């Protein structure tokens, strides 16, 4: 079964991770722009980060047979620095037009400040202007209210719910997101957020419609194989393969295809690996024999 990890920060991961992911069946990933563990202090740092998602990281993924797409946006944590945030929003439109960008994100609330809300709304407007779906981060603290507030903001601005993927859900937020008509992501984490077995219970209760799972793996303690592990847990619990395939492949493809930037024929075919390729003169190899597939 082909698997899709619709939220993973590959810039923080190693080539060992790419190899293990490819072996476990992951054929496509979406890497949302997010914060990098500590606040950036210059707009230029954002720009270089955006470029690395579009350039080197996409190339790195391709070297392991994984199709790499990304989302572009100003994350809520750094949105609280208004001077920086205005600068980022100024450069963002250009990046939203680039190939491989399949949504605006991660956007949303962190501390749920008025400043965060301002940049959330401005980026919803950008998503409409650039005809893109949005990937929405929900806060760690005061999560249920933050999720409900997010849905209210989407409604108040008439943002089409079918173009919104609200992420990091748990038992208390999922029913609200589904009732609103948005798509619901679940970040399967070793300790916090959601785990495989709780996810099985949620799928048994709510089915597969508009439901996605991801690893949200980054520079913290996280596991890039959580999508295959959740698929396995679902299978072991007797969940039908068609439901697993919808959650782990069909739904993310359908959601991000709304960007018009995800070629359905291309993604349906296996990406061929040619490790002889170079990116700006750089190879991911360090003396190994390049793998070349037809």
């Amino acid at each position, binding site marked *: 079964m082909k698997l899709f990890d619709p939220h993973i920060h590959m810039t923080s991961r190693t080539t060992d991770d790419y190899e293990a992911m490819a072996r476990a069946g992951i054929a496509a990933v979406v890497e949302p722009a997010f914060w990098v*563990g*500590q*606040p950036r*202090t210059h707009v230029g740092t954002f720009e270089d980060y955006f470029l690395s998602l579009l350039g080197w990281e996409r190339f790195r993924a391709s070297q392991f047979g994984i199709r790499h797409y990304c989302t572009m946006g100003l994350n809520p*944590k750094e949105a*609280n*620095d208004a001077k920086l945030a205005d600068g980022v929003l100024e450069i963002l439109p250009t990046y939203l037009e680039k190939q491989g960008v399949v949504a605006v994100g991660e956007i949303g609330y*962190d*501390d*749920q*400040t008025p400043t965060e809300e301002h940049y959330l709304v401005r980026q919803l407007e950008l998503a409409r202007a650039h005809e893109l779906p949005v990937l929405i981060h929900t806060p*760690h*603290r*005061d*999560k*249920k*209210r933050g999720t409900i507030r997010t849905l209210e903001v989407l409604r108040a601005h008439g943002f089409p719910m079918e173009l919104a993927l609200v992420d990091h859900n*748990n*038992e*208390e937020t999922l029913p609200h997101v589904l009732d609103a008509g948005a798509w619901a992501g679940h970040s399967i984490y070793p300790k916090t957020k*959601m785990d495989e077995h*709780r996810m099985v219970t949620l799928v048994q209760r709510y089915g597969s419609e508009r439901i996605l799972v991801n690893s949200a793996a980054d520079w913290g303690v996280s596991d890039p194989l959580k999508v295959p592990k959740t698929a396995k847990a679902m299978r072991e619990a007797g969940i039908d393969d068609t439901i697993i395939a919808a959650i782990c492949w069909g739904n993310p493809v359908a959601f991000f295809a709304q960007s018009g930037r995800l070629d359905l024929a291309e993604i349906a075919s296996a990406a061929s690996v040619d490790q002889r390729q170079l990116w700006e003169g750089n190879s991911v190899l360090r003396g190994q024999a390049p793998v070349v597939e037809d």
Partner: protein
Amino acid sequence: MDPRAPALDELVAAATRGASERAASWLREVVDDEVRLVDDNAVRLAFARAARLFGDETVVLGPGSAADWSATDAARAAVLLGAVQRIDDERAVALVETLYRAGELGEQVSVLRALAVLPDPQRFVGVAVEACRTNTEPVFRAIAHDHPVPARHFPALAFHQMVLKAIFLGVPVARIVGLRGRIDDELVRMVEGYASERRAAGRSVPDDVDLVLRLAKESS
């Protein structure tokens, strides 16, 4: 400023008590140097350098003061206080912001602790609130623990988020100064919401949830 906050002499005394003669004379020279203290780059350099001369040993700043300042924190607070006393408001805020933004983890901790001894600390509340967004626990604790500024100067939303983050990270809320006086219905709602989310996930509820709810009941 906290009326119990140590003055510059006390900070220098605390820092130098266990320090080498070289370190002690360096610090006395810096805090007496009228030229250096109004030169932001020189202050930044001295702030960074302090850790090479002073250690991590805990120093006692006098009754009622934060318990776990290091000699380096005290030396840096002396330098920063000396500088802030000599420059206007706008420059003082910019200096504190720069020291925090461009600081490594130890410098960030020192800046946050120093806010407790600077005059008119409400000027620096932006840095203090921003520090609560850190992912780094020692930096978070430097503002959340044993610090007079949050309870006295944080807007409600920032104070609530700080308490909730402390519970979330397992950083004891008992060391949040003035917690009892800042508990309100909104904070109670947020803390109860967190407990409910943990129960729905089949997870344990941290003891500090009960502590906050008990304090709320006692003060209502």
